[in-house]
C-alpha cells in the first residue's frame, strides 16, 4: 500500500535520505563541525598538506576544544558527554576535510583522553582531562614501536621499579601528535605485564622528534618517542589495568571514529568527482554523460551509502551498549577499504587535475593509505572477522 502525496525531491547529497534517521540535535552537531572545518581548516588544508606543517596546531586544537570536539563522547571533566553517533558524525566531517585533522582529534579524544578517563586515577583525570578537553593541552598515545606494530604484545619498552619510582626505557614509533604533546600515554612491559603510564613530555629523558618524509597524512604531526631513563613517580601508572586489554580498549574507540571518518574522505572525493564530471566537457559533452563515468559515479554512491549506513548502525549499537569489537572491525575493514577505492576512482575521473592539490582527491587517497594501516591493518581486521566467523585464530 502506498500513500498518495508528492514525493520528496531527489537529493544528490543524500540520495536515499539517510538524514531522515538523524535527530535535529545530531544534524546540528554535524553542522557545527562542518562550519568549523569550513572556516578554520578548509582554507589552509592543501597548504598544510603540501608543506607538511600545520601552521599553529595549538590554536587549532583550542578551536576544536572550544566547540566541544575533544573527548566529546566522554562524561565529566569538561567533556561534552555526547553520544557515539554524535562523535561519529563529527569524525566524518573532520575527515571530509582531511584524515590528518581527524587523526589529531581522534588521538586526543579517543586514545589519550579515553585512556586516562577509562584507566586513570581520579588525580590523573583531574590533572589532565579538563585542559585536554579545552584544547589547552595536547596528548599522544604511544603503543607502536619500531619493531612491533600489529603485534604490540611483544613490545620492548620497559618500565622498571626503582624504589617507589618507575623508570621507563624504550622507543615508540609513528606516534600521532607526539612532538606537540604535553602528555604521552605510554604502554610498557612491567613484571606484571603491560601497563600504561601518564608521562608529562617535559620529564627529563623524554624526547619526541618528528618523522619527516611522509607521503601520507602530511597535515598531521607523526613522531618517534624516545624514552631514556624517564623517571616517574608511582602515581604515573594506571592503577588497575594489566595486559593488552588497556591499549586495545582505547584503540577500539578510535577505530570506531574511523568507521565514520573514512566515509568523510570518500564523500569529499565523490563530491569533487561529481561536480567535476558535470562541468568538464570532452568530445562535445560533459564527461558525466558518458556511461563509463556514470558507472563509476553510481558505484561510488552505492558504497558511500552502504558505508554510512554501516557506520550509523554500529554507532546506534554503541549507544545502546551492544557494539562488540568485531562490529568495529567489520566497519573499519569495509569503510576504509571502500573509501580508498572511491578516492582512487575519483582521482581517475579528474584526469590530470586528479593529481593536483587544487582538488582534495589525491590528498584523501594518499591519507587513506595511513588509515588503512593504523588502528589495525586491513589484514588484522580481516583476521578478526575470520576468527569471529570460524572460531579459528589465524594470527600466528
Amino acid at each position, binding site marked *: 500500500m502506498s500513500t498518495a502525496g508528492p514525493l520528496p525531491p531527489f537529493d544528490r547529497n543524500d540520495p536515499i535520505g539517510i538524514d531522515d534517521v538523524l535527530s*535535529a*540535535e545530531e544534524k*546540528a*552537531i554535524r553542522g*557545527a563541525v562542518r*562550519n*568549523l572545518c569550513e572556516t578554520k581548516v578548509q582554507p589552509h588544508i592543501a597548504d598544510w598538506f603540501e608543506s607538511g606543517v600545520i601552521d599553529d596546531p595549538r590554536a587549532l586544537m583550542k578551536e576544536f576544544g*572550544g*566547540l*566541544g*570536539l575533544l573527548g*566529546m563522547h566522554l562524561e565529566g571533566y569538561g567533556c*561534552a*558527554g*555526547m553520544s557515539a553517533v*554524535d562523535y561519529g558524525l563529527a569524525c566524518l566531517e573532520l575527515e571530509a576535510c582531511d584524515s590528518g585533522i581527524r587523526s589529531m582529534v581522534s588521538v586526543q579524544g579517543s586514545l589519550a583522553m579515553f585512556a586516562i578517563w577509562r584507566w586513570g586515577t581520579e588525580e590523573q583525570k583531574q590533572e589532565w582531562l579538563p585542559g585536554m578537553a579545552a584544547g589547552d593541552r595536547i596528548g599522544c598515545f604511544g603503543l607502536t614501536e619500531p619493531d612491533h606494530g600489529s603485534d604490540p604484545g611483544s613490545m620492548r619498552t620497559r618500565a622498571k621499579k626503582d624504589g617507589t619510582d618507575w623508570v621507563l626505557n624504550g622507543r615508540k614509533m609513528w606516534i600521532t601528535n607526539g612532538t606537540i604533546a604535553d602528555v604521552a600515554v605510554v604502554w610498557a612491559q612491567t613484571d606484571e605485564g603491560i601497563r600504561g603510564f601518564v608521562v608529562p613530555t617535559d620529564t627529563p629523558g623524554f624526547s619526541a622528534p618528528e618523522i619527516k618524509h611522509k607521503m601520507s597524512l602530511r597535515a598531521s604531526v607523526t613522531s618517534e618517542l624516545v624514552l631514556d631513563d624517564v623517571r616517574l613517580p608511582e602515581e604515573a601508572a594506571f592503577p588497575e589495568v594489566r595486559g593488552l586489554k588497556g591499549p586495545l580498549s582505547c584503540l577500539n574507540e578510535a577505530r570506531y571514529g574511523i568507521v565514520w571518518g573514512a566515509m568523510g574522505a570518500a564523500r569529499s572525493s565523490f563530491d569533487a568527482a561529481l561536480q567535476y564530471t558535470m562541468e568538464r566537457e570532452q568530445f562535445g559533452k560533459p564527461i558525466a554523460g558518458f556511461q563509463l563515468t556514470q558507472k563509476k559515479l553510481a558505484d561510488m554512491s552505492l558504497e558511500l551509502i552502504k558505508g554510512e549506513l554501516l557506520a550509523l548502525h554500529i554507532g546506534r549499537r554503541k549507544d545502546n551498549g551492544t557494539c562488540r569489537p568485531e562490529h568495529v572491525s567489520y566497519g573499519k575493514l569495509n569503510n576504509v577499504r571502500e573509501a580508498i577505492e572511491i578516492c582512487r576512482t575519483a582521482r581517475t575521473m579528474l584526469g590530470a587535475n586528479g593529481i593536483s592539490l587544487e582538488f582534495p582527491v589525491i590528498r584523501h587517497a594518499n591519507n587513506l593509505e595511513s588509515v588503512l594501516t593504523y588502528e589495525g591493518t586491513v589484514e588484522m581486521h580481516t583476521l578478526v572477522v575470520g576468527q569471529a566467523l570460524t572460531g579459528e585464530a589465524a594470527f600466528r
Partner: protein
Amino acid sequence: MNIVVCVKYVPDAQSDRTFNDSDKTTDRESVDGLLSELDEYAVEEALKLVEAGEGEVTVVTVGPDQAADAVKKALQMGADKAVHISDEAIHGSDAPATSLVLAEAIKKIGSPDLVLCGLASTDGTMSVVPAMLAERLGLPQVTQASELSVEGDAVKIRRDGDVASETIEASLPCLVSVTDQINEPRYPSFKGIMAAKKKPVETWTLADLGVDAGQVGLDNSWTKVLEFTKRPPREQGEIVKDEGDGGSKLAEFLASRKFI
C-alpha cells in the same frame, strides 16, 4: 538587562524559493527553513550584552510550527528562553499584522530593557517591522546599528550611511535593529546544542495574547501579493574588448551600476 530578540523563520536562501500558487504567500513547505541569517546578528549582540553584564535573553518568533527550529537555533547559540506564537489565523499576515502580534507577545513577556531586531528578514526584506513594533510598544527606535553600546540607561549606536556615519543615542527601554556589520555571530557549541534541549520554549496562540483573529492573517492584511513572476533568466554578460580604453569602459560600467 533583559533583552527580547525578535527572530524569523525563513526559507533557506540557498534553495529555490517560491510562492504558493493558491494564496500567493511564501511557500514554507517545499523548502527547508532556518533562522533568518540577519537575525543571528541580533541574537549575538543580545548575548554579548548579557554576558558582559547580567540579565536574560528571550527570543520571540511568529510563525508556523516549523518556526520552532528558528528559536531552537537561537537557544543553541545561548539565548535563555523562547516564545513561539503559532496560530492558523496568522497565516499570510503582512508587516503591520505581524508587528501587532509581536508587540502583544513582548508585552506579555514583560517589559524588556531592550528589544533587538535584525536588519530585515531574508525572505520579505522589508525592514519595516522594527519601526512598526517600536511604535506599537511606544518605545524609541534606533535602526540599522553597526555598533551598539549601553551606557547607564542609554544605548549608543553607530549607523553607517553612504556618505557619513552617525552616532545616535536613545534612552532605555528602546528598540534597536542591527546590521550584519555589528558582529560575527557565534556558531552553537556542542554544550550549547545540548543545553538548548532543556531550555523553556512557550508556544502561544492569538487567544493567549488577546489578539482578535480578525486583526491578522491574509484577509485582514493591508497588503497582499497579487501576482508573481519568475525572475527572467540571466542575460548574457557584456564582453568589453580592450582597445586601449578597456579601463575606462570598465569604470563606466561599474559607475552606471552604482558600484563606484
